[in-house]
């Protein structure tokens, strides 16, 4: 596993009263080429029309940035494709594309393509760095204004951040708190202060803080769709998930050593597995009867382990929660909530799956379906990799 992690997350708030937004953020990762592409687009207006424009733009920009085609050509295709607004008689939406490649841990490069969004900010720690920009004139036929795409390329180091946002952020508070809105310099100053006070702030927290501040300037009723995305290069946070007893008893000792020596958060999922670790380390497992819910057995406690849960039922619910992206704050106070929170707060998740079959689960009289451990762990890995861009490794014992 890499010793470097690129943490990408965003936060968004729609214009007050709108149920759908005109800002769209997309991110995807190519596992093989170590490439991450993030696209932020702001459609003309707000609501459904803007959403269609932004979605079209973001998806096209996203797909085209994986192709070898030159950016000017891609940008022209996007603009020629967008539908024309019936009121304003123009087709328009902005975009920012960040194409980040990490060929080796010492060399991370980012290509930025920006069209009419507020310029991307580059922070090294809490210090803002200037980005050298090349301006490309599109000279498109049928253009109703001068169309300039800003292209830049920069190297990212450990602790660097790229912050992109839509004009909802820079124009927040316009005419109220500030005559011309928060403005680019105001946002940069705020981000710099935030990072100075909390140098390790995650992308999720930083983007949420910026959005909260912008909405405050708008007197808590957003005047435009507000979106902010953060790319942060840092050391990975690791979590180990151990589930199931090893196929042979001889490997119990090995399992215990792997758990003991792991550097990071530790989850044991499975009563029997917990008992094995407990027997070999001499640490007691105690069940906490206060935290369970329908379908999710109680959490247990063990010294040195961050979370001890029941196995199959909990894992199945965790898989479903991750696949359906159920927000953590809507879950009950049970094992699934804690499990999912730990997963989402880590960047690399290692699974050690014991392959011994539990005979008690094979009883056909059991009223609920108890799945196969390997399948369920596979679902969790898939969801973590595809939907949350986490790195995972799997080992059978």
């Amino acid at each position: 596993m890499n010793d470097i992690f690129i943490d990408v997350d965003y936060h968004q708030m729609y214009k007050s009263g709108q149920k759908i937004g005109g800002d769209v953020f997309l991110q995807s990762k190519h596992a093989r080429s170590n490439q991450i592409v993030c696209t932020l687009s702001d459609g003309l207006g707000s609501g459904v029309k803007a959403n269609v424009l932004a979605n079209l733009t973001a998806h096209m920009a996203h797909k085209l940035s994986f192709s070898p085609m030159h950016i000017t050509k891609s940008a022209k295709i996007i603009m020629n494709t967008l539908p024309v607004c019936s009121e304003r008689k123009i087709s328009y939406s902005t975009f920012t594309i960040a194409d980040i490649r990490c060929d080796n841990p010492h060399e991370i490069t980012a290509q930025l393509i920006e069209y009419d969004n507020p310029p991307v900010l580059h922070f090294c720690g809490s210090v803002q760095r200037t980005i050298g920009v090349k301006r490309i004139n599109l000279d498109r036929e049928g253009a109703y204004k001068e169309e300039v795409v800003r292209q830049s390329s920069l190297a990212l180091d450990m602790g660097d951040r790229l912050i992109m946002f839509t004009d909802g952020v820079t124009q927040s508070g316009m005419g109220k708190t500030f005559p011309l809105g928060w403005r680019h310099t105001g946002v940069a100053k705020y981000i710099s202060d935030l990072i100075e006070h909390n140098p390790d702030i995650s992308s999720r927290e930083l983007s949420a803080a910026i959005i909260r501040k912008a909405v405050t300037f708008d007197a808590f009723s957003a005047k435009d769709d507000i979106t902010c995305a953060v790319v942060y290069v840092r050391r990975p946070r690791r979590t180990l998930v151990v589930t199931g007893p090893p196929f042979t008893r001889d490997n119990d000792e090995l399992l215990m050593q792997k758990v003991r020596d792991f550097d990071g958060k530790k989850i044991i999922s499975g009563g029997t597995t917990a008992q094995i670790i407990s027997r070999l380390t001499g640490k007691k497992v105690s069940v906490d009867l206060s935290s369970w819910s329908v379908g999710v057995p109680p959490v247990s406690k063990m010294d040195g382990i961050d979370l001890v849960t029941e196995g199959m039922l909990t894992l199945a619910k965790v898989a479903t929660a991750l696949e359906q992206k159920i927000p953590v704050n809507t879950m009950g106070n049970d094992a699934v909530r804690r499990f999912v929170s730990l997963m989402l707060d880590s960047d690399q998740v290692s699974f050690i799956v014991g392959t011994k079959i539990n005979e008690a689960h094979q009883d056909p009289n059991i009223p609920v379906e108890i799945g196969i451990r390997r399948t369920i762990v596979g679902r969790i890995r898939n969801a973590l990799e595809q939907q949350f861009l986490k790195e995972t490794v799997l080992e059978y014992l």
Partner: protein
Amino acid sequence: MVHKKVVVKICVGTACFVQGGADLLLYEDFLDPDLLSMCEIEGSSCIGRCKLDDFEGKAPFVEIDGTVFGQMTPKRLIQLIREAVNAGNK
């Protein structure tokens, strides 16, 4: 006079939990408060009885003062705890 509390362990292993063990965890709702004060109830990870064919009964299992009982229901649990408490009082 201080009575020794009855120790009750409810198995929360997967097989027990799905076959009625979850209902037993609502013990605070169905146990008489007087009875509740006379016992110490805790959860236990799989106690392993579900894997034995020759054992009396099936999941869910509950251990009361060291003796394991199978096919436990809230009704039966009340009865067994009452018996254990009465036996301790004598």
